[in-house]
C-alpha cells in the first residue's frame, strides 16, 4: 500500500484528460438503447427484421462512440463526470442528500461501455439468425435492448442510486428474457428464481448504499473514492459494514456461492440471452461494483478481504466441479461462468483490481463465443443435451473451430487471452499472500480444462447420436463467432506485465484512469514459473479430460471410472443447495406468514378499527349533539317566530271595505298634518 501527498494527488487528477466531446456527451450511449426499446415496442412489428434493426443500430452507434473513448483513454487517460440533481431529501442533522443522474467516464466505465457495446452488438446480430421464426422476436429484441441499456446505465452510473436503478433494470430485463418461452412452466419458475435470488442480494446493496450515503452525505463514487483514499474517519467507522453489504449485493448478481443457484436455471432463456448475460451485461455487474467501490476495500475495509476471498475461492472450485457432471451443454457453460466469476471476485477481493477486471474483459469474449457456439449447435441438433450430439465437427466446421478456440482460451492455454488474465489473477493472489487460494485457483484451472475437454469431446468428436441432419449455422451466426474468436485469441496481449504497447500503453494504465489511484500491485514482468505451473495444470486437465471422454475404444468404461461413488451423486445433486434453499424457504415462509398475519389481524386491524370507532363516535356527537340539538333549534325557532308574526298580522285583514277606506283617510290626514307641521 502506498500514499500520495496532496500535491502528488492533485497532479494525478490533473494528469487525466476530461475527454472532450465524446466524454461530455457519453450519456447518449446510456439513452440510445432505451430509444431503440421504445422504437421496437411501437414500430418493431412493421419492420422486416421485427425490430432487430433498431437494437443493432443503437449498439452500433454505441460501439463507435465507445471505441473513440476507448482510444482516447488509451492514449491520455480520461476522467469526466456529469451529474444532474433530480431530487433531494433532508437527513438527520439538517444536511441535504441529493439524488443525481448522469454518467461517469473513466477507465473502468469506458472498458465496460466498450465491452457491452461490442459483445452486445455481435450477440444481437447473431440473435437475428438464432431467433429467426421465433414466436415473439419483437418482444425479444425489445427486452434485449432494455437489457443492454440497463447495463449501460449501471456501468455509467456516477453514484450508487443510479447504479441501483441500472442494477434493478438489468434484473427486470433478465427476468423477461429468461422467461421468454413462458408457455413452459419450468421457464417461468427459472425466471422467478433468478429474480428472487437476486432480490435477496439486492437488499445488501441497497442497505450498503444507504449506509454510505448517510455517512458521506453523498452517493457519488468519486467522493466515496476520495474519502477512502484520504482515510476519512467517519467513513472508516462504517467501512467494513458497508463493504460487506456491497459485497453481498455483488454476490447475488455475480452468482457467488451460495447465491449462484439462479444462474444455471437462467439457461431457460434463449441462448443469445445466456451469451449476453454471462459475458457482458448481467453477471459482470457484481464484479464491476466491486471494482467501482475498490478504493473502499483497498484503503479502508481490508478486514473484509478474508471472507470475500474465501467465498470467491469456494465459488471458483465448487462451481467448476459442478460443470463436470452436466449433460446440458449450456449448463456446463453456466457453471463455468460461475467458476470464472469466482476467479474475478477472488482477485478483486484480494486487492487485484486490474487482475479481476482484466479477467472480466477477456472472459466476456470467450464466454460469449462459447455460448454462441453452443447456440449454433443447439440450433442444429434441436437439443441441449450433449448425449444427443457428437461428431459435429464434420457438419459444423466453423462452429467447431471457434468453439475450440474459446475452450482453449477459457482453459488458459498459452498464448490465448484466458492464459494471461488467469495468470495475472494467480500472480496477484500469490503476491497478496493468499497462497492457499492461489493453489485452489491452479486446481480450478485444471478443472476448467477438464470440463472444457469433456464438452468439446462429447459435442464435436465421436459419432453423431442425435436425430436428423445437423447443418452449419448461417453466416449471420458464424460471423459473430469469428468476431469473438479474434479477441479471444489476442486480447491477452493487451496486458502482459511490464509491456507497454507504444502510445496506447496497456490495459493496466487504461483501467487505472480513476479519480484516485487504485493502489493495486502490478508485476514488473511475467512470473514464468507460476505461469508454467498454471499452464501445466490446464494441459493436464485437457489431456485427462480428453483421455476419459475421447470417443475412442471403451468410452463407456472410461466414463464409468469417472463416476466416483460419493462425489458424483453429490455433484449431480448440485451439493443439494437447491434443496437447502427450498428447505429454508419452506421452513421460514410459514412462521413468517403467520407473523405477518398476526401483525395484520391484531396490530394493523387494531389501529384501523380504533380509528373507525373514533370517527364513528365523533360523527354521532356531531349529528346528535350539534346538528339535531344546536343548529336545528336555531332554525326552528326562527321559523316559529315568523309563523307567529304572520298569525298576528293577518288579523288586520278584515275584508271590510270601509275599514280599509278609513285607513286611507286616516293615513291621508296624517300625511297632510305632517306636511303642515314639518314643511
Amino acid at each position, binding site marked *: 500500500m502506498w500514499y500520495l501527498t496532496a500535491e502528488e494527488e492533485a497532479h494525478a487528477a490533473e494528469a487525466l484528460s476530461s475527454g472532450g466531446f465524446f466524454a461530455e456527451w457519453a450519456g447518449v450511449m446510456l439513452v440510445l438503447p432505451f430509444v431503440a426499446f421504445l422504437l421496437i415496442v411501437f414500430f418493431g412489428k412493421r419492420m422486416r427484421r421485427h425490430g432487430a434493426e433498431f437494437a443493432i443500430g443503437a449498439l452500433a452507434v454505441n460501439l463507435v462512440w465507445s471505441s473513440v473513448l476507448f482510444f482516447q483513454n488509451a492514449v491520455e487517460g480520461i476522467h469526466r463526470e456529469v451529474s444532474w440533481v433530480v431530487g433531494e431529501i433532508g437527513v438527520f442533522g439538517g444536511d441535504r442528500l441529493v439524488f443525481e443522474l448522469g454518467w461517469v467516464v473513466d477507465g473502468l466505465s469506458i472498458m465496460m461501455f466498450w465491452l457491452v457495446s461490442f459483445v452486445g452488438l455481435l450477440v444481437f446480430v447473431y440473435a437475428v439468425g438464432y431467433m429467426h421464426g421465433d414466436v415473439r422476436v419483437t418482444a425479444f429484441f425489445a427486452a434485449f435492448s432494455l437489457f443492454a441499456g440497463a447495463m449501460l446505465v449501471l456501468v455509467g452510473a456516477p453514484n450508487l442510486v443510479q447504479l441501483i436503478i441500472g442494477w434493478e433494470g438489468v434484473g427486470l430485463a433478465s427476468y423477461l428474457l429468461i422467461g421468454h418461452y413462458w408457455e413452459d412452466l419450468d421457464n417461468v419458475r427459472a425466471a422467478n428464481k433468478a429474480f428472487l435470488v437476486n432480490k435477496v442480494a439486492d437488499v445488501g446493496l441497497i442497505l450498503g448504499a444507504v449506509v454510505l450515503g448517510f455517512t458521506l452525505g453523498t452517493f457519488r463514487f468519486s467522493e466515496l473514492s476520495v474519502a477512502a483514499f484520504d482515510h476519512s474517519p467517519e467513513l472508516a467507522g462504517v467501512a467494513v459494514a458497508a463493504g460487506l453489504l456491497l459485497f453481498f449485493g455483488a454476490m447475488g448478481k455475480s452468482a457467488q456461492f451460495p447465491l449462484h443457484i439462479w444462474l444455471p436455471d437462467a439457461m431457460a432463456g434463449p441462448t443469445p440471452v445466456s451469451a449476453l448475460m454471462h459475458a457482458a451485461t448481467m453477471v459482470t455487474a457484481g464484479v464491476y461494483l466491486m471494482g467501482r467501490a475498490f478504493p473502499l476495500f483497498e484503503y479502508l475495509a481490508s478486514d473484509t478481504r478474508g471472507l470475500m476471498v474465501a467465498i470467491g475461492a469456494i465459488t471458483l472450485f465448487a462451481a467448476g466441479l459442478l460443470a463436470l457432471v452436466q449433460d446440458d451443454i449450456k449448463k456446463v457453460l453456466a457453471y463455468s461462468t460461475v467458476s470464472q466469476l469466482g476467479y474475478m471476485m477472488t482477485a478483486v477481493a484480494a486487492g487485484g483490481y486490474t487482475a479481476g477486471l482484466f479477467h472480466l474483459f477477456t472472459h466476456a469474449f470467450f464466454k460469449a463465443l462459447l455460448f454462441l457456439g453452443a447456440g449454433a449447435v443447439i440450433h442444429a441438433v434441436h437439443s441441449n443435451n450433449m448425449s444427443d450430439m457428437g461428431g459435429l465437427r464434420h457438419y459444423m466446421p466453423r462452429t467447431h473451430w471457434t468453439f475450440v478456440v474459446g475452450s482453449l482460451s477459457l482453459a488458459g492455454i498459452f498464448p490465448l487471452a484466458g492464459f494471461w488474465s488467469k495468470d495475472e489473477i494467480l500472480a496477484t493472489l500469490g503476491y497478496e499472500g493468499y497462497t492457499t487460494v492461489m493453489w485452489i485457483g491452479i486446481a480450478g484451472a485444471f478443472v476448467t480444462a477438464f470440463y472444457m475437454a469433456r464438452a468439446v469431446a462429447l459435442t464435436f468428436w465421436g459419432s453423431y447420436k442425435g436425430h436428423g441432419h445437423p447443418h452449419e449455422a448461417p453466416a449471420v451466426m458464424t460471423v459473430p463467432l469469428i468476431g469473438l474468436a479474434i479477441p479471444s485469441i489476442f486480447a491477452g496481449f493487451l496486458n502482459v506485465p511490464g509491456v507497454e504497447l507504444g502510445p496506447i500503453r496497456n490495459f493496466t494504465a487504461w483501467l487505472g484512469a480513476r479519480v484516485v489511484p487504485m493502489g493495486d500491485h502490478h508485476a514488473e514482468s511475467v512470473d514464468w514459473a507460476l505461469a508454467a505451473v498454471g499452464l501445466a495444470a490446464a494441459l493436464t486437465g485437457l489431456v485427462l479430460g480428453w483421455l476419459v471422454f475421447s470417443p475412442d475404444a471403451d468410452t463407456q468404461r472410461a466414463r464409468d471410472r469417472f463416476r466416483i461413488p460419493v462425489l458424483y451423486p453429490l455433484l449431480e445433486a448440485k451439493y443439494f443447495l437447491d434443496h437447502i434453499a427450498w428447505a429454508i424457504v419452506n421452513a421460514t415462509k410459514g412462521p413468517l406468514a403467520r407473523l405477518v398475519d398476526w401483525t395484520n389481524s391484531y396490530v394493523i386491524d387494531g389501529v384501523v378499527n380504533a380509528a373507525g370507532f373514533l370517527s364513528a363516535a365523533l360523527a354521532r356527537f356531531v349529528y346528535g349533539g350539534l346538528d339535531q340539538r344546536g343548529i336545528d333549534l336555531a332554525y326552528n325557532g326562527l321559523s316559529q317566530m315568523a309563523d307567529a308574526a304572520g298569525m298576528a298580522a293577518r288579523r288586520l*285583514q*278584515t*275584508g*271590510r*271595505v*270601509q275599514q280599509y*277606506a278609513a285607513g286611507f*283617510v286616516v293615513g291621508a290626514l296624517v300625511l297632510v298634518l305632517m306636511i303642515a307641521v314639518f314643511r
Partner: protein
Amino acid sequence: MILPQFLILAAALFSLGVYGLLVRRNAVMVLLAVELMLAAVNINLVAFEAALRTSQAVGQVFAIFVITVAAAEVGIGLAIVLMIFRNRQSANVDEFDLMKW
C-alpha cells in the same frame, strides 16, 4: 277673485263624500259618496285653473279626465254591486267580508 269660496265649497263637498264613504252601509250610497269626492276634486281643479290661468288649461283638461274615469269607475262599481246583490240578496257593505283571510 273668489278662490277661497270655491275651495271652501270643495272642502265641504269632499268632507261630505268622506263621511258618506265611511258611514253609509248601502253600496250604492258609498259609490255616490265617492262621486261627491271626485266632484270636489274637479271643483278644485277648475278653480285653481281659473286662478292661475295656465296657457294650456291644464285644470279643465284634467277635470274632464276625472269625469271620464269616474264614469268608467261607476260603471264597473255598479256592475259589481249588481252581481253581489244578485248572489247575496243584499247591497250592504257590512256584509261583504269575502276578501279576508
